[in-house]
């Protein structure tokens, strides 16, 4: 029924997809279904608990518990506040830096790229040591410096928790995204820019009216990547968790998952909560996609 060409396409598609899907099934789908299965159970013991444990089927009980837990729900509010601070700063900053690097006004491009990217290469352990050092009053040279200038900042107070966590994330990711944007800018065709210049557009106008629209796909991609990353926010707040009273063990939904899995050993609960996070991420990225698509319609 299919034409030879359609058959050839199918055969080739199967060939090209096979390696990925075999591994995907083994290392992603299987654990995912396993997690889904485990999310339907809970571990119970009785009395003092020394008589052993048993697995009890509780249906959607773990999902209900998570959704009914204010700690879990509030995590999403944290994410909302975090996203409002982090995304404009990080994506905006990365874009500006990429445009500056691309602006022909800079020497030592490679150096700046590397310098900005470097935090991403620093082991997480060290990032934690450094930031706790920088945030702890009495130890931090930065705080002493600000104090001597009459500025009193408390990085670890509850009012600043979102900013302090976002700062660590910006530090880690701004260069990474800058590199992506810069690479995309390199791909902007020269005629387009030349045409713009003939029109008399200045540097800033060229950047905003020609370059930015040209790399919109890259920006949309980075945005999506960042939104999903933010929903899974975990590493950065954990860095300052023990030093900051504002950040509790369930400050973000993913921290809630980690606490359930690694502190309480309640894997059913952890699995249910992470599937809820995935669902939320899926819904949100669908919206982000819709949004960025409709924006480019006019």
């Amino acid at each position, binding site marked *: 029924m299919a034409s030879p060409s359609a058959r050839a396409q199918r055969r080739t598609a199967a060939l090209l997809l096979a390696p990925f899907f075999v591994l995907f099934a083994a290392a992603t789908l299987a654990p995912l279904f396993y997690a889904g299965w485990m999310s339907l159970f809970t571990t119970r013991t009785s009395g003092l608990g020394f008589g052993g444990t048993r697995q009890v089927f509780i249906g959607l009980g773990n999902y209900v518990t998570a959704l009914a837990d204010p700690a879990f729900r509030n995590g999403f509010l944290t994410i909302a506040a975090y996203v409002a601070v982090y995304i404009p700063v990080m994506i905006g900053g990365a874009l500006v830096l990429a445009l500056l690097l691309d602006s022909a006004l800079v020497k030592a491009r490679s150096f700046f790229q590397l310098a900005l990217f470097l935090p991403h290469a620093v082991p997480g352990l060290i990032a934690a040591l450094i930031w706790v050092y920088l945030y702890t009053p009495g130890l931090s040279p930065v705080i002493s410096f600000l104090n001597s200038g009459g500025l009193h900042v408390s990085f670890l107070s509850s009012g600043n928790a979102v900013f302090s966590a976002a700062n660590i994330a910006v530090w880690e990711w701004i260069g990474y995204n800058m590199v992506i944007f810069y690479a995309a800018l390199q791909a902007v065709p020269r005629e387009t820019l030349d045409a713009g210049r003939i029109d008399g557009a200045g540097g800033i106008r060229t950047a905003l009216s020609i370059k930015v629209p040209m790399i919109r796909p890259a920006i949309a991609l980075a945005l999506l990547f960042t939104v999903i990353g933010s929903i899974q926010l975990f590493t950065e707040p954990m860095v300052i968790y023990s030093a900051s009273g504002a950040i509790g063990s369930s400050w973000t939904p993913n921290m809630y998952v980690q606490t359930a899995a690694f502190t309480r050993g309640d894997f059913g609960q952890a699995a249910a909560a992470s599937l809820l996070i*995935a669902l939320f991420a899926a819904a949100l990225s669908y919206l982000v996609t819709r949004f960025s698509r409709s924006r*480019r319609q006019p």
Partner: protein
Amino acid sequence: MSEPTTLSAPASAPARERNSAGKLDRRPAPTTRKQPSALLSKTAVTAILALAALYTLLPMLWLIMSSTKSRQDLFATNGFAPGHGFALFSNLSHLFTTDNGIYLRWIINTVLYAGLGALLATVFSVAAGYAFDKLAFPAKEKIFALVLIGVMVPATAMAIPLYLIAAKVGLVNTYWGVFIPGLVFPFGVYLARVFSAAYVPDEVLEAARLDGAGEFKAFLRIAFPMLGPAFVTIFLFQFTQIWNSFFLPLVMLSDQKLYPVNLGLYDWYSSALSQGHPEDYLLAVVGSLVSVAPLIILFLMLQRYWKAGMTAGAVK
């Protein structure tokens, strides 16, 4: 840290716009369009970038300074100032000789896990992404949605089920237990689909088909070279992801000889100060500094390839 998604390949549409807006031929070098504006003088631009670099490098300075300090100086002196002595070389020799040079082994392990793992993961992702973009087959979007689910689930949450499954097939505490999961990069498939839409014009493939080239050959000979930038980007993403992964190796491995460097350093650090072994703390710090080196080398290599790759990917 995360990954992206959508239920249809959204970015691919705008990417195509780029094609129509002007074929992807690269401008030679940005220096050709020097046009100083009143606002953006060279000095101002350089100053802004320098400030940004200061922000990203300041914590690095702590790492570098700390690596040159003796144990005494480590806690006694300002983290951004040099210590009283210069102990970098003795720290380094300590690092490479401790436990019969296990650090070097961790670095090699990590290069295998992340380097080889990301390389294969990228090949598989690009192949799959291309198939999703260019080839017709049944239930395509449904299958693609399945891939995207993989992007949405927090990776750390998968570590435990993955471990339990690995235990059933006997992969716990083996290279494979960490290596195989690194071969799967659903976000890479998504990216590759987007890139394929942007960099591989349909007309070129049509032409190849008319010339009688087989589908697979068309992919290998025509599309794959065009996907150079995609390849490099996906590789970098997955490489850093594996390089930074922590939970999976933590639960999967018990034999120190199989550790990636990340976990080994954590091992040193976690019991150093609580058990009165500050020299291990110093090892973790110096070891971290050294472990940044491979990533810098990789970055510099990719930087070069990036430009080359992008030009090669240009559509004539």
